[in-house]
């Protein structure tokens, strides 16, 4: 294997990895607020991308419009789901909420199939797919574009969490809900914003990745890799989600070079089982000690 090809493989791995990282981040945002895993995250991504694509098709508008429509649709979807369904299960156990989001994911996927069929559609991209050769290095602009856009979004999220009032409130709720409430933070508002932000992050990830994996009702499955990425980095930790996503993307792309090619689809699951068994806290996370 030449160094040039290796660079190509690693860079495209980082590109898929940054999508996994975005999915991991949106899962972690919801987890940190409501302590539940949102099984419907991938399907929310899929629906928003489909809505953006439909707007693009109907309006013959530039691709930026598709992105904008997808983001608005995602915000709306996140808000409605949290308000109409999840809010009512506020006192239910994690187990129950897990089942509810699972039910939602089935419903959303089925609804997408009914509306847009279960076929695969090509999706336009902001970036070209043709590799560019720069000296000894050969990369596809689309990979660099995905990585760049994802990093920009991550930086924006980081700033949001660090410097805004809402971000501080979200971090406070993640740390200790009761204390946050006593400090006058509206926990309900944090729930609502968390679902909206997570959904929007998903929509951006969807518009970025759809040109690569095609637009289809199945594309929500990318959320499973997002979960693996989050676990790999340490569930609940934002930097962990980014590192885990990138690492998983690269691993997934490198594994077929050294192992049988059919292993590619099993990589995320094998990584997840291994990390859960060996180091359940993830690379950057800590295992929460349970106090009696």
């Amino acid at each position, binding site marked *: 294997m030449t160094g040039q090809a290796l660079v190509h493989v690693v860079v495209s791995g980082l590109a898929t990895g940054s999508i996994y990282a975005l999915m991991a981040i949106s899962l972690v945002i919801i987890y940190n607020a409501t302590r*539940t*895993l949102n099984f419907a995250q991938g399907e929310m991504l899929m629906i928003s991308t489909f809505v953006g694509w439909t707007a693009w098709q109907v309006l013959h508008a530039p691709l930026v419009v598709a992105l904008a429509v997808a983001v608005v649709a995602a915000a709306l979807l996140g808000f409605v789901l949290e308000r109409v*369904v999840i809010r*009512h*299960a506020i006192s*239910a156990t*994690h*187990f*129950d*909420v*897990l*089942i*509810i989001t*699972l*039910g*939602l*994911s*089935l*419903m*959303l*996927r*089925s*609804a997408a*199939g*009914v509306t847009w069929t*279960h076929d695969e559609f090509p999706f336009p991209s902001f970036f070209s797919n043709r590799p560019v050769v720069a000296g000894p290095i050969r990369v596809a602009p689309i990979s660099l574009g995905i990585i760049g856009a994802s990093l920009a979004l991550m930086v924006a999220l980081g700033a949001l969490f660090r410097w805004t009032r809402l971000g501080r409130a979200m971090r406070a709720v993640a740390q200790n809900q009761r204390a946050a409430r006593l400090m006058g933070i509206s926990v309900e508002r944090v729930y609502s914003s968390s679902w909206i932000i997570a959904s929007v992050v998903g929509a951006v990830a969807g518009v970025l990745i759809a040109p690569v994996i095609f637009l289809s009702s199945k594309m929500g499955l990318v959320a*499973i890799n997002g*979960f*693996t990425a989050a*676990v790999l980095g340490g*569930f609940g930790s934002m930097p962990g989600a980014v590192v885990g996503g990138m690492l998983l993307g690269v691993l997934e792309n490198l594994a077929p070079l050294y192992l*049988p090619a*059919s292993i590619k*689809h*099993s990589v*995320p*699951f*094998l990584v*997840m*089982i291994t990390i*859960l*068994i060996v180091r*359940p806290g993830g690379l950057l996370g800590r295992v929460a000690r*349970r106090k*009696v």
Partner: protein
Amino acid sequence: MRHAALATVAAVVVGWPWAAPRYFVFLASLIAINAIVAIGLNLLSGYTNQLSFGHAGFLAIGAYAAAILTIRAPALPVPATLLLAGLVTAAVGLALGVPCLRLEGLYLAMATLAFGFVVVEAILNLEWLTRGNDGLRVPAARIGPWILATDTARYYLVVAVAALLIVAAVNLSRTKTGRALLAVRESEIAAQASGVNLAAYKTLAFVVSAFYTGVAGGLFALVVGFLSPDSFDVFLSVDFVAMIIVGGLGSILGSVVGAAVITALNDSLAGFQNYRPLIFGAILVTSMLFMPGGIASALRKIPGAGARPPR
């Protein structure tokens, strides 16, 4: 009252093949098989609060084990085949259950989900054993001189095994072990403080659950007669979870009712594949929001209608 109800149920179950059309005999077999899986899953999820999204994987292991045994060792009587299928699956359950002791809640759910995917990938890739994507045809099994060639014969086999396993589960839930499992569900810390060996009982639940599902898998292989990896996808695992949610967590009777409802619903929606997950999802969401105890707890509110509430 209870004896009369039990006798009526028994009479209907025994007389079913004579009263119902052939296809419904097959469907009833499927219901009984799913009921076994649902009980197995409920012993794990309903009793010890360990949610599994990988039971389609266990079912696949049991089914392929039974199919391969029937093909390679045709002289083996069916009960032995089923027992071996159950034991193989239980061994896998042990291998998965011990490392999973460290996980709880959603981590466990995701690990078992991953397990289900890995099993399907393994079946696809172990072509010399499983024939991969081509699928595996299962020959008719035999008990001594009888060959189980008709739907009715297979139905009676399935029902007999299911009855045995239901009685075993009911008895188990009333023993010290059953109480210990329930205690684990209510509060792991309190159970531990009362002298329940947490690791041992959680592992036991995993093994017993895998055994039940493995036996059901063996029956599935015999009844359906053809196995292919795509029959065991993650949506089947979700169906199993739906059965115990709808039926009632921590209830044996609920498992059976849930299995019947979901299997019959699945079958009647066969013509509406596009809407099936929509309806299933809606059932999961609404039953979690409005009926968290499942059908079993709704039944309990009717006076004189049976089992004491474990929840």
